[in-house]
């Protein structure tokens, strides 16, 4: 059978710097093909070439055996290639159907939009995805997962046969991800081919028929996923042996450092728990269950309506983030672009922002000391940046995350809250973040780990709180916890 898409020996340089070096991929009809690699491995450039965003320097692209040249995304779409972007482009105040048929609305004579026909066609597309979204609903009333589905429907309405999905599960809940996976399976049944980009191992193994790995702009390997054990895949991705995916460590929690007592807020209901020195406390739950709200209450960006917080047995009042920092509480936010970083500012300015008082001379800054501090953190966390003056928005996701962590840690907090610390972060940086957490607890600090990645929670936490609908539904000890048990409490009871 002729593969639906073939890319051979694709090379691309920018300003003389090779970004892709003879990369290739063969995509069969009715399969899901995972594309893996660390951030900066060349995945995005490769996909952009397939999407016609820019031409390759050399190499060929074949669609159903025919050589093609795209000069823009519209031409790629005409050959049946569509991309579901990580950041969705929607018109929030228009309906689902209007979004799907934007620019291609079915019309009656005189150019009036044929609403009835448009809604019928939209409904047919939506049902093809085996989901249920009203096509007359305003786009803004949908969840991100549902919006993604609409984007997929839009691609199908354009007769797309090849879908490129770039980390589609990074911003949706577990439940929505399940729906997405079902839809993907249905599309596969219908003979569509999907290129799937994700850092999440469990998804890859669940969905992908074939895995292609890129590293540093070079093609590394293509293998059927069933013949590629996870340890070996990780080795292919990072190109070096990792001792193990997770850092195992003995648990030896000390005395109680922090206590939350009957905390209530518009989202949270009667949250009580204790946090010990030298402990990693995992908080699991679906998105929107209240995990981040707990973190925000401790970090001072959300105020509880009742309840109290005790630090070393004494009640404290955390009125704003500055107070939290003063009390020795540091938060690494789940949304680093919104709440963690000033993207246009330099790496140095971001690292020192939260602890600026410590690096200056009273009212005035001390650039020399600040530079020393920043350089120290850049080398300690192995942040890959051209210089400390580089804008932080230009770093890869993993390196941005390290900047956030470094900035938080410069205040020397006793309690560190990490909210989805490895989201959108490549395997190498993940490993380093795990190592950092291990060091924190060895030094007697207390860590709260909030994560949607259950293997991560299970491997790292001493205890796990499962949150659902603003309440703590279960407290599980390390030994008794399992993915099934956590999901049971997170979803059902």
């Amino acid at each position, binding site marked *: 059978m002729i593969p639906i898409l073939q890319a051979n020996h694709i090379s691309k340089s*920018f*300003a003389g*710097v090779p*970004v892709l070096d003879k990369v290739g991929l063969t995509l069969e009809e009715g399969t899901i093909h995972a594309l893996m690699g660390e951030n*900066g491995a060349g995945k*995005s*450039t490769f996909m*952009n070439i397939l999407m016609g965003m820019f031409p390759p320097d050399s190499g060929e692209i074949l669609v159903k055996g025919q050589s093609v040249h795209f000069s823009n995304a519209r031409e790629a779409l005409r050959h049946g290639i569509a991309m579901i972007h990580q950041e969705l482009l929607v018109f929030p105040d228009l309906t689902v159907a209007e979004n799907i048929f934007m620019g291609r609305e079915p019309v009656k004579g005189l150019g009036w939009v044929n609403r009835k026909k448009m809604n019928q066609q939209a409904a047919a597309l939506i049902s093809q995805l085996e989901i249920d979204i009203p096509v007359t609903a305003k786009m803004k009333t949908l969840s991100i997962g549902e919006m993604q589905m609409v984007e997929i429907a839009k691609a199908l309405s354009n007769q797309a046969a090849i879908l490129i999905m770039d980390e589609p599960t990074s911003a949706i809940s577990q439940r929505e991800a399940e729906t997405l996976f079902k839809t993907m399976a249905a599309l596969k049944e219908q003979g569509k081919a999907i290129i799937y980009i994700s850092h999440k191992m469990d998804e890859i193994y669940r969905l992908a028929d074939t895995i292609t790995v890129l590293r*540093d*702009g070079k093609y590394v390997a293509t293998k059927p996923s069933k013949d590629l054990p996870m340890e070996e895949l990780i080795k292919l991705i990072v190109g070096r042996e990792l001792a193990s995916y997770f850092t195992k460590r003995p648990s030896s929690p000390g005395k109680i450092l922090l206590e939350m007592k009957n905390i209530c807020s518009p989202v949270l209901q009667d949250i009580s728990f204790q946090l010990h020195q030298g402990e990693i406390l995992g908080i699991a739950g679906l998105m929107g269950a209240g995990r981040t709200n707990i973190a925000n209450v401790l*970090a001072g*960006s959300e105020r509880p309506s009742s309840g109290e917080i005790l630090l070393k047995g004494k009640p404290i009042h955390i009125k*704003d*983030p*500055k107070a*939290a*920092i003063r009390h020795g509480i540091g*938060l690494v*936010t789940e949304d680093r672009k*919104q*709440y*963690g*970083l*000033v*993207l*246009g*500012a*330099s790496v140095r*300015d971001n690292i020192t*922002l*939260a602890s*600026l*008082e410590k690096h*200056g001379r009273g*009212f*005035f*800054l001390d650039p020399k000391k600040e530079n020393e501090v920043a350089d120290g953190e850049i080398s300690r966390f192995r942040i*890959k940046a*051209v210089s400390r*003056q*580089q*804008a932080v*928005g*230009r*770093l*890869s996701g993993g390196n941005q995350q390290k900047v956030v962590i470094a*900035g938080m840690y410069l205040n020397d907090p006793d309690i560190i809250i990490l909210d989805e610390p490895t989201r959108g972060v490549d395997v190498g940086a993940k490993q380093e973040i795990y190592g950092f957490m291990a060091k924190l607890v060895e030094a007697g600090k207390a860590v709260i780990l909030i994560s949607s990645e259950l293997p991560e929670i299970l491997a790292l936490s001493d205890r796990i709180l499962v949150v659902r609908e603003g309440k703590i539904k279960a407290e599980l000890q390390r030994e008794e916890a399992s993915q099934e048990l956590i999901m049971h409490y997170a979803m059902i009871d």
Partner: protein
Amino acid sequence: MRIKIFDKPNGIGSNRYDYIRKFGMLAAFLLICLLLSLATPNFFSLQNMTIVLRQVSINGILAIGVTFVIITGGIDLSLGSVVALAGVVAALFAHPGEYPLIVPIALALLVGAGIGGLNGLVITKGRVASFIVTLGMMTIARGLALVLSEGRPVTNLSDSFNAIGGGNFAGIPIPILIFALVIVVAILLLNHTRIGRYMYAVGGNEKAAYASGVRVNRVKSVAYVVCSALAALAGIVLASRINTGQPNAGVAYELDAIAAVVIGGTSLAGGIGSIGGTVLGVLLIGVINNGLDLLNISSYYQQIIKGVIIIAAVLIDRKK
């Protein structure tokens, strides 16, 4: 090290690009100066340069003030009215033989700072857009100036007061010296203090700054206070220069100031900008106005040319 071309988001200036941009702006400025020197016999003379600097000093003081506000991501439209109000307040206390010189100056500056504080308070605590608040304040301050002066120019001012705008010190007009001092202090404040750094952080990403423990409301309020106090200073200089507290003075001055800031490369979105850029923007506008005067081109055309420059500067900024 691998250079990642496509990690660069659009619209964020790295320092390297800033240098190229500033250098480009400086080159354009010098080119215009060169052309004007060739085209007119009088342009490149110490006397004319002094005239240009004295002319731009009031807009310069205002532009530096509003640079602070714009870097924090806000805007201040009340500047021109504060110029008038401060001028009137100063003039009311500057009649010969009544109070020492410090009284009118201090009172005018206090009134300016107070207006800035009020702007800041409503914008931060009241969570109203700065455009709206300062638009309202524009009318309020103008009204106050008219009330205090009973709608008439306040005249009969002391010689010592009139010397602020009209006198020389060591052969240099005092407005130029004041402008120079403001530049130095502004650079110190914005680039060498903690609060200056916080202003950039708040303008760049307010939520992240807050989460990092920055007192966002306080930082913003300081920017508005600095801005209005400098507007009051400009008002004092102007009143002294024209020997009158003129309640109708300074109309639309805020637009000239904002224009200079934008030409100087400060982003209206906040987080990016510099005092140096603003000064260059002020000088550029001043030199062009002066050159067109010397070339006997009508002031009507000057308006058109100034508008073209504002748009062109931002276009060039986009293309970098």
